[in-house]
């Protein structure tokens, strides 16, 4: 009996030595993880995934792709930052590179940018501010989804108005539309807690010369006179002329698309996704939908580029070399153009050459590309910094507007409050 037990023990030991290594998980080398944004354009997402998988084969790695939406991006990344489990390749939004580079969690990808520049031409100077810090690139600009002004040319024709070019124009035309009884609340600018709120809020303030930092990115505060002018024009729509409904302040991300396509508003700021939705569903309003550059103000047309996606290589990853090679491959001209031309004109390149592609040579295409060319990074006229990111993500700018509209605070007090909040943020998060 004892002999049998001994034999069994030896057998188990041998089996353990022989089998366990075979069952052990494969080493991490040769595998990459990639997190990307799930966009409103599923066909484009498919092309991107196919490109990435082809590139993975070329690089000789196995690629696992995970997605997130604009709404849950920072939930996912916050957990990963804290648990040090960021992916090998991360597609970050406009403020992501600044936040993660400031934490020392991104690899220098200047070499990948140099390779991409050879194929795609130089990066737009305006896009640099969101990805280049201390002379080094910490992310490769992938694409921008610019916010454009959607409007209804048929309604404008009905009231005898030209397409608006300034913030005041929008207000004037909205009044005409309302007075003509065409729509009750034609002005669909939502100063809410989504990108459709804070992106136009930056464009508005900057167009009135009311930036909160100087060129070095240091806090200067929203100048009172310019800030008041900007506030006056947008709060009037809600408080005096009633061309906007308070409900717009509670809209979530897609509501303005739906309301515009339901024919209830004349103007709304949005990415080109309304065009995609109308085209793909052959929507009856497609023929009556037009786009224009977002309005200019007394200080010019200073548009915000908030929806910018960038490839980055977090230092948590073990295979930074492979990760960089994969990004370089995805950004290779052939792959990038295939993706861009399959994006229904949503994904605008931030490199010069693909912007000149005949694909953009359409009336809407030109406006979309022009918007990106004229766009400024979050935190303009300085670079994007973690503090600038928090001003946007903390809804400081839209809160300033809604304090006047909803809480009936004076515009002066609202600007003072906003400046106090912004100063606290910049004091707490100094530029490294």
């Amino acid at each position, binding site marked *: 009996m004892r002999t049998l037990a001994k034999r069994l023990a030896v057998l188990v030991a041998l089996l353990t030595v022989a089998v366990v290594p075979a069952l052990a998980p494969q080493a991490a080398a040769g595998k990459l993880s990639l997190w990307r944004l799930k966009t409103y354009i599923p066909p484009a997402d498919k092309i991107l995934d196919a490109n990435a998988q082809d590139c993975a084969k070329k690089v000789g790695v196995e690629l696992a792709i995970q997605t997130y939406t604009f709404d849950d991006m*920072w*939930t996912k990344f*916050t957990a990963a*930052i*804290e648990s040090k489990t960021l992916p090998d390749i991360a597609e970050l939004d406009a403020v992501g590179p600044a*936040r*993660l580079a400031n*934490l020392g*969690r991104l690899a220098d990808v200047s070499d990948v940018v140099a390779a991409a520049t050879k194929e795609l031409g130089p990066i737009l100077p305006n896009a640099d501010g969101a990805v280049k810090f201390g002379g080094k690139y910490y992310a490769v600009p992938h694409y921008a989804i610019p916010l454009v002004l959607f409007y209804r040319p048929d309604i404008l024709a009905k009231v005898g108005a030209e397409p608006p070019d300034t913030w005041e124009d929008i207000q004037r035309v909205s009044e005409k539309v309302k007075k003509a009884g065409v729509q*009750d*609340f034609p002005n669909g600018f939502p100063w*809410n*807690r*989504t990108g459709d709120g804070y992106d136009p809020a930056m464009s508005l303030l900057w167009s009135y010369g009311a930036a909160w930092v100087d060129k070095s990115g240091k806090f200067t505060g929203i100048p009172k006179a310019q800030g008041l002018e900007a506030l006056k024009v947008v709060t009037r729509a809600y408080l005096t002329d009633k061309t906007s*409904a*308070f*409900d*717009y*302040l*509670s*809209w*979530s991300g897609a509501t303005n698309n*739906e*309301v515009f396509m*339901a024919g*209830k508003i004349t103007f709304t700021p949005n990415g080109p996704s309304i065009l995609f939705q109308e085209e793909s569903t052959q929507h009856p309003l497609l023929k009556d939908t037009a786009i224009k550059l977002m309005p200019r103000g007394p200080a010019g047309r200073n548009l915000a580029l908030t929806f910018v996606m960038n490839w980055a290589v977090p230092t948590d990853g073990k295979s930074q070399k492979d990760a960089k090679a994969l990004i370089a491959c995805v950004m290779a001209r052939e792959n990038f153009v295939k993706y861009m031309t399959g994006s229904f004109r949503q994904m605008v390149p931030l490199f010069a050459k693909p912007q000149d592609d005949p694909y953009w040579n359409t009336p809407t295409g030109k406006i979309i590309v022009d918007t990106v060319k004229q766009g400024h990074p979050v935190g303009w006229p300085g670079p994007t910094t973690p503090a600038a990111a*928090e001003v946007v*993500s*903390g*809804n400081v700018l839209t*809160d300033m507007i*809604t*304090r006047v*509209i*909803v*809480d009936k605070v004076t515009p002066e007090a609202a600007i003072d*409050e906003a400046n106090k909040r912004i100063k606290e943020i910049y004091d*707490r*998060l100094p530029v490294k």
Partner: protein
Amino acid sequence: MNALTDRHRERLLGYALIAPVAIFLGGLVGYPFLSAIYLSLTEKTVGYPAHFVGLRNYGALLESGRFRIVAWNSAAFTVGSIVVKLVIGMAMALALHNVVRGNQFIRGILLLPWVIPTVVIALTWKWLMDLFRGLINVALIDVGAVKGGVHWLGDPTLAMVSVIMANVWRGFPFFGVSFLAAMQTVPQDLYDAAAVDGAGGWHKFWRITLPSIKGVVAVVTLLSTIVTLNDFNIVYIMTRGGPGAATHIFATYSYELGIMSQRWGLAMAASMASLPLVALLIVGVVRYLHREEE
């Protein structure tokens, strides 16, 4: 001596048997809870180390006008929701208590709102209350009750009423079913005796039903208060805390601070702000139930 040893053994065995549960609870409940309290006492930004700052975050919140609005909104949302749920839940239980035919079927139907995922409920109510396309406004205009659409989600007061309505719709079946279950344990003899004494419906409810089920009422109200105070989905989906900050509550505010602004320390402090109130409620209810048992 032997007996003492046995008692020791028994005690040790007892500890050994409850050890897995104690470790499990300590790990899953105690550790995160204590971590949250600790984080609320630190200046902690995501990705950076935490620095102990004592009660500074709480002080900052108390000074913040925004937090005061959020605290007020949270109180209004919670109290408003609970009171209405209590009334409708009680009405539902009383009605079903006297229904003999189809009781199970009706109970099943009324439980539906509680079973449907909150996200679906919030999206449905958001659509129902839409200014232009919402069923409620369309119906009101069609019957001539209003000329233009009601700004359910735009007017600051109505927006709060709207999120409360959605919350009530989701939560009242829990009240109703719990109250009904409790009502069914009340002996029929009590009602018969009261009837002989000439008691009417109201007296029976006030003198027999309510005192008999008050323990359940207290527990259900407490549980629902805790859940409602921490609600996130309904407000986030329906209004995102808007218009302005008119429906911003503890959960959405903490999310904004912790995830969007990456300020974990402050976000934890904002989340913990309701803890004393909840703790008081729990202690109060537990003591009450204990007294009732005695």
